[in-house]
């Protein structure tokens, strides 16, 4: 009893405890290292393949460090692939940037209305918006396609950009929750100055809501940048393709220049990687909150 209370077990017990701690530590490191290796090796293989000559790509047993290192694959990607890779990058950037702006704008405005303004119907509308999050994308796919067709927007980027400007239930919810945590004194002082609700939203709330806005923007970026189904439905001309769609179609065409495909895949991952390094906390936060996966 006394020994336990003072926290000093007899020497033999202490020795055993240290041993079991050592074993536990070893097991923990073993698990983590094996897992990290499993996660990393495919990416290393991707980079390695992207720097090989065609001859080295089809070599068995596989070569891990290319010799010679063929950096020019990253130049050839822009010339040799059966779709204009540079144009695809521009298309992807354009669609992603506009979608992120549109979704953040429309969702944050709605979030502010639900968080701070009193109006008839708010109690009905809010649950309806939340409920839409449970609908699988496939259910709305066909009618939206028919709508876009009626608007003659097939083979344009509009179907991938315009809907973003018309709200986002998840973003609305996320930013509303954040706005609710802000002190009300903020709007009171602005109201005394005669500011209207939009002004308060744009000039008071948005500037101080960076964590929520950034979390949502990062998530939207991931979703749009990595989207395949939307571009696959709406875009057929190679000049309109996004990077994800172009790369996906290489497989469909049974293209076998793996070194170029891997180089293209590496390039398509670079913006995500850069953003991840710059805004890691928002990625993790957004993922934890949303349940959106790659």
């Amino acid at each position, binding site marked *: 009893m006394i020994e336990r209370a003072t926290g000093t077990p007899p020497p033999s017990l202490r020795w055993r405890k240290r041993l079991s701690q050592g074993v536990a530590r070893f097991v923990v490191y073993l698990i983590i290292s094996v897992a990290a290796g499993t996660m990393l090796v495919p990416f290393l293989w991707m980079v390695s393949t992207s720097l090989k000559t065609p001859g080295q790509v089809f070599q068995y047993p596989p070569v891990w460090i290319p010799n010679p290192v063929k950096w020019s694959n990253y130049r050839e990607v822009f010339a040799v692939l059966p779709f204009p890779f540079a144009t695809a990058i521009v298309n992807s950037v354009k669609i992603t940037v506009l979608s992120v702006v549109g979704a953040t704008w429309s969702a944050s405005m709605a979030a502010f209305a639900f968080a701070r303004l009193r*109006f008839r119907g708010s109690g009905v509308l809010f649950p309806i918006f939340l409920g839409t999050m449970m609908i699988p994308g496939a*259910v709305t796919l066909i*009618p939206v396609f028919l709508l876009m067709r009626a608007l003659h927007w097939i083979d344009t980027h509009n179907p991938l950009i315009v809907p973003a400007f018309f709200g986002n239930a998840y973003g609305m919810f996320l930013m509303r929750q954040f706005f609710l945590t802000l002190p009300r004194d903020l709007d009171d002082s602005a109201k005394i100055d005669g500011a209207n609700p939009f002004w308060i939203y744009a000039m008071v709330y948005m500037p101080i809501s960076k964590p929520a806005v950034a979390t949502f923007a990062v998530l939207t970026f991931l979703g749009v940048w990595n989207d395949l189904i939307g571009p696959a439905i709406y875009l057929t001309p190679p000049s309109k393709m996004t990077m994800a769609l172009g790369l996906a179609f290489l497989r*469909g065409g049974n293209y076998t220049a793996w070194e170029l495909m891997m180089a293209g*895949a590496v390039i398509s*991952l670079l913006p995500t990687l850069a953003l991840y390094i710059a805004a890691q906390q928002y990625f*993790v936060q957004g*993922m934890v909150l949303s349940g959106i996966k790659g």
Partner: protein
Amino acid sequence: MNQSAGGVVAPKSRPAVRLRLPLSGLARQEERWAYLMLLPSILGLVFFTAGPVVESLAISFTRYNVVRPPQWIGPANYIQLFTKDRVFVKAFKNTCLYVFGTTPSSITLSLLLALALNQKIRGIPFFRSIFFLPTISSGVAVALLWTWLYNPDFGIFNWILGLLGVSREMRPAWLASTTWALPALMIMAVWQGLGYNMTIFLAGLQGIDPSYYEAAEIDGAGWWARFRYITLPLISPTTFFLLVMAGIGGFQVFVPAFVMTAGGPRYATTTVALHLFYTAFQYMRMGEASAMAYVMFAVVFTLTFLQLRLQKLWVHYE
């Protein structure tokens, strides 16, 4: 304060009316602003969500090829899906196998990993970034990469099997094999989802009050007892959330099947979402495709509902 005292003396109706009128004007103005700021979202709800949900239900009861006007055929599309459309039945089975195959292994492995990362060791942020990498990577890039990893002659998988002494004839053709193509997609899905599940588990584990473990240790509970009677029950809300998400996400799987196998070989990897995509946008059979979408909706809904019901049996909320 002075005014309230005066109010008793003053005529009763007038101040009340005067007070209410300007207020209601302000309230009306606030309401107008609210609806103005909600306008984009409400339009989006009507044209891109609620409207389409109703419309696709209607389309699912028609024969519609986009060129000719839709023709009402009642529940024929639904009946056909389960009686005549062999590919759909196969796709449905594949999707169920995919969901029930990937979910338990992914949850178990990621919990194990989260438990390991929850120890006091160095370099956790670094490891967490590595585990997160596959999750944030584009599905297309990952699918292309894994197609290459699975290459029967030059891929890593068969190279490793070779190192382990598996003879050339015994090594699977992976994506080209009707037996191995679906498991191959499932292995990839577990790999890609691990970081996400682990991150959520880690957040859950860090929310457990350490005093539980201290109390258990004083009572002499071993690591297994601590895990079984403290960690597992207290982490169960997280496990529940991940199960729901895995069910919802898994049932809609599309990208790997589309990029890696186009549903082949011999429909071995055709998923419901992929079959829907081809039916709608390649064969322009919008009625059938809409019926598939509603079957998917029903399954996802039922899955979520069931899990919400079942959670009472095993989820402990503090």
